[in-house]
């Protein structure tokens, strides 16, 4: 039976991992696709949009919304697993 303290350490590690994964997506869609790679991506078309421009003005924002809801879902599960959720 691991001690409470070890459990909480594990919880925190899992939390950090979740956040790091989601923040890398955050970075890639905005700073990656929307800024650094915007020029080359503009060669690809998405209907009337050039892809780099689309990421900068639309795609990154949609992704941000999805990221937060994924985070909410993952954290609620994690809280339950480690029995630290609020009643």
């Amino acid at each position, binding site marked *: 039976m691991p001690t409470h303290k070890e459990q909480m350490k594990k919880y925190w590690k899992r939390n950090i991992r979740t956040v790091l994964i*989601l*923040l890398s997506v955050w970075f890639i869609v905005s700073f990656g696709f929307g800024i650094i790679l915007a020029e080359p991506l503009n060669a690809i078309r998405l209907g*009337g*949009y050039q892809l780099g421009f689309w990421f900068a003005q639309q795609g990154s924002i949609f992704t*941000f*919304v999805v990221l*937060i*809801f994924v985070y909410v879902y993952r*954290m609620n599960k994690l809280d339950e697993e480690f029995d630290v959720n609020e009643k």
Partner: protein
Amino acid sequence: MDILTWTYILVGLSFALYIGIAIYTRAGSTKEFYTAGGGVSPLANGMATAADWMSAASFISMAGIIAFSGYDGSVYLMGWTGGYVLLAMLLAPYLRKFGKFTVPDFVGDRYYSNKARVVAVFCALFISFTYVAGQMRGVGIVFSRYLEVEIEQGVIIGMAIVFFYAVLGGMKGITYTQVAQYCVLIFAFMVPAIFISIQLTGNPVPQLGLGGTVQDGSYLLDKLDGILVDLGFHEYTSGRKSVTDIFAITLALMVGTAGLPHVIVRFFTVPRVKDARLSAGYALVFIAILYTTAPAVAAFGIYNAIDTVAGKPVDELPVWVENWQKTNLIVVDDLNQDGVVQYLADPDQNELTVDKDIMVLAAPEIAELPNWVVGLVAAGGMAAALSTAAGLLLVISTSVSRDLFRTFVPQMTEKTELIIARVSAAVAVVIAGYFGINPPGFVAEVVAFAFGLAAASFFPVIIMGIFSTRMNKEGAIAGMVSGLVFTLAYIIYFKFISPEANVSENWWFGISPEGIGSLGMLINFVACFIVSKFTPAPPEDVQEMIQDIRIPRGAGKAQDH
């Protein structure tokens, strides 16, 4: 009915609604005044956060800024939404668990130092005051353009309204009026956008219309690129700013958003940690509706303006051009006397000057929508300005009554504290109103820099306070001060001391003053880290507190001391 009557009716009705809500939800205790008693549902808080966040600038000016800067305008779109991801994952849940009322509260307790608290209060006040002055100005401008009263009278009416519900209602009153204000502003923004999208592209969803085709079957954005290049302008879909600068500005805006005290305090009002996370998600949904529509409004607006005005005979211009020429927001000057309006990049030959605000303000008329829509846009602009102003005023009054008075006069009763909170809110309204009527020339610029300052001061210190148990008060103070001083010095040098040197060759690493907050943030982090290495670790009880805020269970409602 004419435009003026509709405007009076709709603006009047919206004001009556806000006042009604304020009376119904007025605050009775400090807890209700500071955090609405901690009982706001995540959905309502999400809406209130969105209204709090989207200011007169988002509603009135942003689409116009994008219209004239094309791809470069993306910094605002990504910057002012991406910050919510940071807020949701790195700040909101932990600050909610911490369970006090303000950002300086957290800084002061976490760094066991009243010095750190006072530095934080100073930052919070500075950021909020520059911001709120801009909002009062926005209220005045909307009044003067739509209701044909002087800007001064407009500001005073706006002051009276905000005074009434911010001072009376505190956070509780503000929260529920902001919910109503969000509904008004989003409806007012979307109705013209949807109709213009249908007219131009046949698609009722502006986000899809922007990627759609215009009447001749070519894609709107391609056509816009072509037209602008022909006139000597830069392509709409590619940038003029360097990649480094775009990167730095976007980062400064994102991090600044996450560090703004009036946004952070909104997450103290929900009952549980998981509600704080969820409510950040809702907030971003509500914000994204406007922020993904704005680039469409921008492209439609500039396309329409060029299509209906440029190259047309001076005496056959559409009615909306005539209407808005009276306000000087659109200026046609037939320099070469050939009777045709030339719109060109070359300033010596250009005959058409369009203010950025026109893209939203004149949208209903450009789309030939009924008069009530014009009144609706006026009410929407007002809602955006008032909701943000109220949120900021609350931060100011809380900083004074709680962070300053409570810290140094701990024995005062709750009733006295509530009176001090209300009086400081009242004083803040008057000061903000004064700056709204007599704006110092640099208000607009300073507002933009508030983000850089928030990024360079609050953000690193709060993050380190949560994610590092080793970070101590010496590190935090060194970080806040060095980040703030560096950013402020860079901005003051390039904007006020030698504005003529403000060109990319002179910028450090090619970063403009708008983006320098991101470098200031790095300096803050580095200073924190180095100084804390050589100074003693924080006391045992503070380290325990950090462990505690990392775990959701046991949050309870926002606690008083």
